């Protein structure tokens, strides 16, 4: 497995270089996992991306580097301590700093070729040669990334880079060339399309914006109306209005926008209008760290909005989950006529991974709960045993579809009757009993005869998976882990069973207060013995989890 970092200032074209490199690696057969670390600025600063690739599945980034492709000196100084013993630095000859490097006159050659911007392609050519990947792969991909008139000169540049260095690492094969390379955000958009999304409204906010951008570009083909709303309040109210009128609708944002959507979650709850809301988390509070990652909105997602109403919260663990669980969220929202909140984060949303083409037969079919049959006596909020009332599409038959954010009776007329209020509150909450029956238990990873149990949720899944592998191959203790996808209501069966077997339980979370541990305690009485928390805006890696846990265990004399 190889791991390289491309770093430089914003505006230096790292994005294009990395997009072409990761695709070329994948086309050559490798599994690729690219992690993106941005600063919140358009020019300057320090941005880097780490491409990890090899002939087996990769679920986490790693800080141990085989190579650094430095577009400026700062990149070298920040990252060289992470370079493996025989790792390399590749840079332009103009970088004179006191470090060993493969220096290529990229800027000069680019100027000679007639366009300073093709320097990036020189580095692409050089990197491919270092890793024994044929240049043709990059040529092919350039078609999608570079304007037609500039392709030839970029190819020439890449050829120059390729010829400037020698092969350094053998190609180790791999059967992933027909897989997709997809970001978590794209996977959410695609999952929604697969579920029949027809309306998406959102207000731009990092790191959720790529969802709206993907849907805008591909909406025409997929039949999705993507509307940029004036604010997040409008975004969610639009999604609810479209859903009321009978189309599957979604909105997406990050924590700040989600805060503005809160009142409307309750509207979806009381008016029983399905809506799917994606929160691609970033560190808060307020503006926080706009382009970085955190998992601190769990409690917020569970409790957001006044009053009580049923909802479900699903955390995305991987690029597979991002697709299948988003599609499932629509099914659940429709079936129970309530909001479903999807929690993702910047790490998952922006990172790209090699994924097998999704199996569309695994996408749940539309819930058969919408009818257009004439019914003059139709009661939109008829009280039923399971709490679910037949939904109809307004304008499609002889009936009236009502919706009200005030408490209402079975017909939808507002009321202040104590009895109706009780019955309606009970009816709505009864829907959760059905939801609980369909909950998916957390995924168990590791050794069935574990001593130590790790618990986590959402995007730390990949790092936890890698950590368990490392830990089980090193220590004398055996490790297992439970990583939650469905997180509210909290599935407790597997947790209770595994917790009973564990000598110690540790929660691994990307927040400062251990929100999952608190939820587990509240719902099951199970107390975690210790925790590994990270809330500096940078995603924890498998190596870091393993390392910190071993230190912690040593300290505790285990």
């Amino acid at each position: 497995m190889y791991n390289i970092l491309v770093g430089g200032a914003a505006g230096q074209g790292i994005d294009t270089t990395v997009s072409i490199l990761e695709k070329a690696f994948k086309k050559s057969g490798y599994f690729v996992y690219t992690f993106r670390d941005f600063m919140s600025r358009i020019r300057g600063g320090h941005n880097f991306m780490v491409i990890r690739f090899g002939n087996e599945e990769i679920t986490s980034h790693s800080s141990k580097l085989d190579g650094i492709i430095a577009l400026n000196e700062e990149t070298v100084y920040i990252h060289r301590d992470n370079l493996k013993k025989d790792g390399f630095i590749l840079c332009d000859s103009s970088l004179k700093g006191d470090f060993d490097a493969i220096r290529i006159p990229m800027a000069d050659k680019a100027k000679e070729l007639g366009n300073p911007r093709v320097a990036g392609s020189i580095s692409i050519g050089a990197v491919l040669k270092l890793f024994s990947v044929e240049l043709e792969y990059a040529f092919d991909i350039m078609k999608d990334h570079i304007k037609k008139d500039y392709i030839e000169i970029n190819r020439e540049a890449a050829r120059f880079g390729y010829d400037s260095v020698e092969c350094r690492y053998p190609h180790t094969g791999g059967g992933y060339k027909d897989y997709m390379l997809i970001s978590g955000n794209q996977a959410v958009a695609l999952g929604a399309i697969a579920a029949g999304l027809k309306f998406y409204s959102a207000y731009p906010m990092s790191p959720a914006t790529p969802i709206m951008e993907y849907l805008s570009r591909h909406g025409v083909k997929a039949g999705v109306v993507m509307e940029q709303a004036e604010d997040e309040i409008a975004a969610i109210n639009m999604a609810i209005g479209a859903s009321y009128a009978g189309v599957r609708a979604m909105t997406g944002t990050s924590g700040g926008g989600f805060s503005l959507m809160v009142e409307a979650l309750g509207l979806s709850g009381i008016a029983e209008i399905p809506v799917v809301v994606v929160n691609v988390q970033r560190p808060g509070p307020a503006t926080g760290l706009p382009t970085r990652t955190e998992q601190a909105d769990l409690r917020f997602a569970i409790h957001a909005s006044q009053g009580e109403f049923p909802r479900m919260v699903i955390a995305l663990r991987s690029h597979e989950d991002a697709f299948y669980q988003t599609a499932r969220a629509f099914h659940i929202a429709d079936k129970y006529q309530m909001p479903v909140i999807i929690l993702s984060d910047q790490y998952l949303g922006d990172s790209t991974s090699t994924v097998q083409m999704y199996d569309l037969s695994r996408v749940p079919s539309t819930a058969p709960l919408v009818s257009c049959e004439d019914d003059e006596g139709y009661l939109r909020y008829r009280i039923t045993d399971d709490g679910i009332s037949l939904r109809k599409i307004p304008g499609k038959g002889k009936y009236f579809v009502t919706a009200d954010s005030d408490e209402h009776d079975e017909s939808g007329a507002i009321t202040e009757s104590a009895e109706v209020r009780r019955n309606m509150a009970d009816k709505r909450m009864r829907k959760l009993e059905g939801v609980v029956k369909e909950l998916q238990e957390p995924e168990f990873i590791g050794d069935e005869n574990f001593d130590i149990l790790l618990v986590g949720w959402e995007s730390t899944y990949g790092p936890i998976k890698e950590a368990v592998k490392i830990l089980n191959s090193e220590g004398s203790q055996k490790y297992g882990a439970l990583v939650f996808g469905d997180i509210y209501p909290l599935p407790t069966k597997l947790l209770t069973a595994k917790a009973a077997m564990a000598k110690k339980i540790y929660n691994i979370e990307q927040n400062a207060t251990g929100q999952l541990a608190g939820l587990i305690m509240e719902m099951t009485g199970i107390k975690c013995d210790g925790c590994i928390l990270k809330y500096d805006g940078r995603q924890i890696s498998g190596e870091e989890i393993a390392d910190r846990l071993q230190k912690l265990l040593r300290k505790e004399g285990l």
Partner: protein
Amino acid sequence: MGKSFSTYETAWCPGCGNFSILKCLKTALEELGKDPHEVLVAAGIGQAAKTPQYISANTFCGLHGRSLPAAAAAKIANEGLTVIVNTGDGDSYGEGGNHFIHAIRRNVNIAHFVHNNQIYGLTKGQSSPTTSLGHTTNAQAYGNINHPLNPVLLAISAGAGFVARSFCGDQKHLVAMMKEAISYKGYALVDILQNCISFNKVNTFAWYRDRVYYLEDDYDPSDKIKAMERAMEFGDRIPIGILYREERPDYHEMNRILAGREPLVDQVRDPGTVRELMLELV
């Protein structure tokens, strides 16, 4: 023709201007030959916003201030619905002020009837964005010091294609304005001067009645500058009628997925699309 809309018992104060607005809405819809099952009356929260509760149609009473985005999206989802928003001045210009501006920009084919009583009725009489200077209320105990907003002027300047003003005390006029607004293709605003008998003792029924006058027969509503001049008249004399009107493509005609197609709710997607999109990522 001949389809009739039922209205139900209301919880409004006797003498409230909302009664005649409800009656005019029913008449306008009936005269336009609308089928109640194909009409959606939406609102936010307030006294005016109770209108959907009192008429037989599909109804959407959402959050305070937030009915415009929801109503516009419902229309985007199903072009077959006739979508009307009946709601208050606070709901439309205060809590929902941002949505008001952007509903104009979005230009979805909906009619927006603002029951403008220059006060917050439901919450018992605080100032609204249209309350006049100096007007004392329980929350503006020493008189309102915030300058009133001119909604029709704002709408014209923000680029609305249909802007009218009417008065609840002139039912014939109001019905005509409502019919024009509903028939207009695009976002249409009718700011309806409405007396609140309980909480606005300044702008009473008589106050409005004595001031309103019809725009002249030869008034040209396509002249934007003139329209803005007339929109600014709000004092001893208040013009009512269509202040500004301009024909232009609405949201549906501009949107690639909606233009010339069946309503979004009825569109069937080619099942091969997701596969195609996945192949682009290989």
